[in-house]
């Protein structure tokens, strides 16, 4: 089905933007709503979900090295329950791809291209991602390898440029209401960290299998540090108004002004961020297309790339009349749905698989 191979570095370069691209946009504001000044602690708790998910995915991969979750579910829980679970996964990924696409378009329209129609922005991004997904996982991996520096360095520069505007006092009081606020604030980022389960679709194509787990764990750590730094930056610049802003990082980058002429840095942030969103959407799109082809037992996933693209755009519009519904979904549905589908169900699958293997070994030797 997929004959390409990627390196573990490329996998890390695909996953990092896949998680971070939207996490640094609106999530700091949501975390601030629950954790207030302790929002920098939340990524540490949320990252626990990330480490757990990578571990589970790797263990499942060791049991079924050449298969993704759509395929080995049938082997673990039987053909019909496996097909049903596979359909749930497909539905989850296609719907999420749609929501991400919508979130991206809403951000672009709200911050910059106010009068452009939603459909134009979404269709153009979907078209671009369709081309790269059609190219296969090697193309996607190399594109991610190429674009990640373009994504990271400007953001680091923006963070450095913010230093004159920082008010470190904003971090106090620390833990004023105890541990619960940062933990409650960690729920939504936790949903983002559960997305690391995407590696279950990428691990079968790793050229260097042994480095898979290490690469995954280091990516979790990198995402965690990024979120902590971004949360701190946003807190230092915006203080307690963070939770009232929809896209705090954009707001913060508007503060940058040197010698009265080096301004409007937020347009650079936006352009750079689109690169990150492109990688993220492409990874989800690839997983959706590959999963669909595997679920239907097709010989190749490439013909279904375009139809799946139409479905993704359909899902990005369905029953979401405005951007408030989109953000509400991010807070109320996505964390639980994400952690359920990508951490809890895989744990159950792993337990069942291990138990079945042990039973089989028992009856063979006994």
């Amino acid at each position, binding site marked *: 089905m997929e004959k390409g191979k990627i390196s573990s570095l490329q996998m890390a370069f695909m996953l990092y933007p896949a998680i971070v691209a939207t996490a640094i946009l609106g999530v700091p504001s949501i975390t601030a709503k629950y954790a207030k000044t302790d929002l920098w602690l939340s990524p540490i708790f949320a990252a626990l979900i990330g480490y757990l998910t990578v571990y589970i995915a790797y263990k499942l991969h060791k049991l079924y090295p050449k298969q993704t979750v759509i395929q080995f579910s049938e082997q673990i829980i039987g053909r019909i329950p496996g097909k049903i679970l596979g359909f749930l996964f497909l*539905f989850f990924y296609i*719907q999420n791809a749609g929501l991400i696409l919508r979130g991206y378009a809403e951000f672009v329209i709200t911050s910059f291209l106010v009068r452009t129609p939603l*459909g134009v922005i979404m269709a153009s991004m979907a078209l671009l991602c369709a081309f790269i997904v059609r190219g296969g996982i090697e193309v996607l991996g190399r594109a991610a390898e190429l674009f990640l520096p373009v994504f990271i360095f400007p953001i680091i520069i923006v963070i450095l440029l913010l230093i004159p505007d920082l008010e470190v006092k904003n971090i106090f009081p620390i833990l004023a209401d105890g541990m619960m606020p940062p933990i409650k604030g960690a*729920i*939504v980022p936790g949903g983002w960290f559960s997305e690391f389960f995407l590696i279950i679709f990428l691990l079968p194509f790793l050229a260097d299998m042994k480095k898979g787990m290490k690469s995954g764990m280091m990516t979790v750590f990198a995402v965690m540090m990024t979120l902590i730094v971004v949360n701190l930056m946003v807190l230092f610049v915006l203080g307690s108004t963070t939770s009232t802003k929809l896209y705090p990082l954009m707001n913060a980058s508007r503060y940058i002004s040197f010698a009265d002429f080096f301004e409007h840095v937020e347009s650079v942030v936006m352009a750079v961020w689109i690169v990150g969103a492109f990688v993220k959407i492409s990874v989800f799109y690839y997983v959706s297309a590959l999963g*669909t*082809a595997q679920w*239907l*037992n*097709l*010989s*190749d996933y490439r*013909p*279904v790339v*375009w*139809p*799946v693209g*139409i*479905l993704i755009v*359909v*899902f990005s*519009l*369905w*029953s*979401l*009349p*405005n951007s408030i519904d989109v953000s509400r*979904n991010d*807070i*109320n*549905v996505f*964390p*639980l*749905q994400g952690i359920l589908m990508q951490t809890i169900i895989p744990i159950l699958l792993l337990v069942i698989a291990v138990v079945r293997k042990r039973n089989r070994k028992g009856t063979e030797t006994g």
Partner: protein
Amino acid sequence: MRWGAFICTTVIVALIILFEWPKMKQNPKKDKVAFLTLLLTGLVLSMFNLPQMSGPTQWVETLFRPFGEFMEK
């Protein structure tokens, strides 16, 4: 029925078929059936006024409503 979106989608679907069908000549019948079915599903769905229609997102939201209420506090 939203004609604008439907016509755009039909044009896109036609382009996709034009583009992909020649490459799928040697693929097994199953591939072609799946390809056309998925395209048709997308086409049919584009006929409706999607943003206003209630759909799977609503079902999932209803499913997770207790969690939603917990997060609203």
